[in-house]
């Protein structure tokens, strides 16, 4: 984890590891600020990365969050081993959640994570195989001026 560079890196995530949840995303946020990415984009990347990180911790067994920063874009790829998502359209619906009660008591499981990622990114792709795992690819353009969401 300490080998991450300003342009690319990988964080390892463990399902059920709630105590340090968010550390990958906050480290990524610091990196983006350091390399001088515009504040409004940093905010969007941080939100999306955090929701993706939480989903691995909440729903999967283990995974990785990878980032790549170029002059064109920030790309985040989150891959996990886990149950996968049976119906992606349904999972994307605001309010849909399969989180267990104890996770909901912590305030997760509002079914807002995937919609948040979609809303804050320029490109969002989900691939999932039931019983194997899920991969998210999330891209933020650095070149074009995007309407700030």
């Amino acid at each position, binding site marked *: 984890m300490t080998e991450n560079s300003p342009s690319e890196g990988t964080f390892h995530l463990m399902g059920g590891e*709630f*105590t340090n*949840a*968010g*550390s990958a*995303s*906050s480290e990524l*946020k610091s990196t983006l600020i350091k390399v001088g990415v515009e504040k409004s984009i940093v*905010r969007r990347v*941080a*939100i999306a990365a*955090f*929701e993706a990180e*939480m989903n691995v911790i909440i729903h999967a067994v283990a995974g990785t969050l990878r980032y790549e920063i170029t002059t064109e874009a920030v790309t985040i790829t989150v891959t996990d081993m886990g149950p996968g998502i049976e119906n992606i359209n349904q999972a994307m619906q605001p309010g849909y959640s399969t989180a267990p009660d104890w996770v909901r008591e*912590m*305030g*997760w499981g*509002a*079914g*807002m*994570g995937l*919609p*948040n990622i979609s*809303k804050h990114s320029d490109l969002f792709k989900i691939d999932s195989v039931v019983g194997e795992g899920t991969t998210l690819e999330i891209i933020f353009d650095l070149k074009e001026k995007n309407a700030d969401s």
Partner: protein
Amino acid sequence: MLTVSAVAEKLGLNVVVKGDMSQIVSGCYISDLLSDVMAHGKDDDLWITLQTHPNVVAVAVIKGISAVILTNERNPEPETIRKAEAEKVTIMVSSLNTFELAGLLYMMLKDDGSVHAGTS
């Protein structure tokens, strides 16, 4: 412009973890759902919640929230305090319930010109 320390003093909050008390308070968001705060909280907002576990600190850091206020005298978990100290996130506790505290805070922010009715 109101600072976190001015809010703490005027509302009689118990400051459990002292982050940057000179940070500006521009508004407030109230929710116990963490992804809801991720979606709707704003930079420099105060965040009022009943959640006391360490993920509260992570959300505050990611969102750039100026301080967290726990109501009904709920105390943060020991691990939450450790994380908040490490990340310099201010955590304060109020003996009031969320409605009472939010009412007072709303008036303070309105007097200060930070809250405008009808905007979000």
